[in-house]
């Protein structure tokens, strides 16, 4: 479904990604682990088209999208949940959802109702402003907003960052259920080992802008691997 070859990208003049190769089959859930500054967010932004690729290619469903604008990729079925949620602060929860449905699907707003059925937790919050929500509620809204664009591929950038553990658990359950019910393909970048292990069918390790190795998800519970991962960077897990 997603094929990435030799992808390079830079932030301003500083090169961040040094040739990423990645192949994701439909229905997979791939976790990419890495510490801060290893290129996780740049990778996600380059995949969705918010950071231009300086070299290499990205193909979605066999179509080369490397030079396409982000909104075109979204309409092809790529969905993006950014780091830090990026909720529209002065739109209500309902407007956040409607905007995504309208932007991606023309005048069709039925996606909003479908998504609300999956996230009943958002129902009582519909008329609140985005900025008035807690971090966890915003994260749920960010995922729900993305689903309103009816994606087939979900790009998730650190959904557990700064979220209280009980909500992290709930988000994990939600995502697992959605994968099953909607047949979603997921690419997740994370620092949280447990969350990644629970959700992913395959785990990759990103270091200094390159995918350095693959890990079986079970191994993330192995103390030696944890030790190694923690030892790789500053030790924030």
């Amino acid at each position, binding site marked *: 479904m997603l094929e990435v070859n030799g992808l390079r990208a830079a932030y301003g003049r500083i090169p961040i990604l040094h040739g990423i190769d990645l192949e994701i089959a439909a229905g997979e859930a791939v976790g990419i682990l890495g510490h801060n500054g290893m290129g996780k967010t740049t990778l996600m932004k380059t995949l969705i088209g918010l950071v231009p690729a300086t070299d290499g290619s990205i193909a979605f469903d066999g179509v080369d999208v490397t030079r396409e604008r982000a*909104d075109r990729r979204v309409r092809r079925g790529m969905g993006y949940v950014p780091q830090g949620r*990026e909720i*529209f602060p*002065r739109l209500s929860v309902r407007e956040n959802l*409607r*905007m995504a449905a309208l932007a*991606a699907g023309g005048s069709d707003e039925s996606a909003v109702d479908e998504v609300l059925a999956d996230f009943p937790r958002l129902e009582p919050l519909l008329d609140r402003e985005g900025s008035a929500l807690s971090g966890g509620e915003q994260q749920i809204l960010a995922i729900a907003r*993305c689903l309103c664009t009816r994606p087939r591929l979900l790009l998730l950038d650190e959904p557990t960052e700064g979220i209280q553990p009980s909500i992290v658990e709930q988000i994990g359950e939600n995502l697992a259920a959605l994968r099953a019910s909607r047949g979603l393909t997921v690419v997740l970048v994370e620092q949280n080992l447990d969350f990644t292990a629970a959700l992913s069918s395959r785990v990759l390790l990103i270091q200094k802008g390159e995918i350095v190795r693959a890990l079986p998800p079970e191994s993330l519970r192995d103390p030696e691997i944890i030790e190694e991962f923690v030892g790789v960077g500053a030790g924030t897990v």
Partner: protein
Amino acid sequence: MDLAVVVVIQILYAVASLALISIGLAIIFGMMGVINFAHGEFLMMGGYAFILSYNAGVNFWIAMLVVAPVTIAVIGVVVERLIIRHLYGRVIETVLATWGLSLFLIGLAATVLGYHQKGVNPPFGTIRIGAYQEGGYTFFVIFVTLALMAALYVGFKYTRWGLIARGTMQNAQMASGIGVNVDRVYATTFGIGAALSGLAGAILAPIAGVLPEIGVTYVVKAFITVIGGGAVALAGTGAASSLFGAVSQAVTFLSRPVVGEVALLVVAIVLLRLLPLGITGRYFRRGL
């Protein structure tokens, strides 16, 4: 009593005309963060589009309410495409480029149309209020401005396009990440701002006449109103033009028009000293 009625009408008219000349600039600034120094020339071109098409035989109201805004909207979209789009996020460069555009448009209008003032008589005649009389067109300007502000509010608040425009204004990159064609939203917003400026120029043409440099007289007041109003386009323009229009018109009544203009400037300076981000920097922040 009659005098009081006339004073109130004059104040309402001052507020309305200030809002009218400012709203196009306010929307372009508030939604896109772009400072359009050629705003006055958009008004000037709107005035010409109206008068020239009216003189060519187009119906008065169609020339004013359709030809002028549509023509300036098209010009606005072209300007956005050729100039503004390449300068997003670069305030100084945008100011310089649009200033250059302003000078170019003044020169072009002077060369093509000459320096003599063009005008048409305002319709509706006069309305008697006791011992005084007031032009019927004054009421028309007040009414049209109110209708325009209401239509913009509804458009931004309740339409599909308005929702997408508001979200894009708050976070353009994220809007792109959920499928919004941000270039198109910006081009449309700029076109709407330009259309409103063209319409304002046409509506005020029967009162003020049209000259190649007429934009200069509009642009200063429009800028003061927009800066005084702050980043929230509709509420800011409404609040600032109410304050400035009321003060300048009231002072004009008590002394002379020149003193009224001075009073407007003094109020603006004091306001910006107290509220550097304009009225909507502190109040009506959640408005539109």
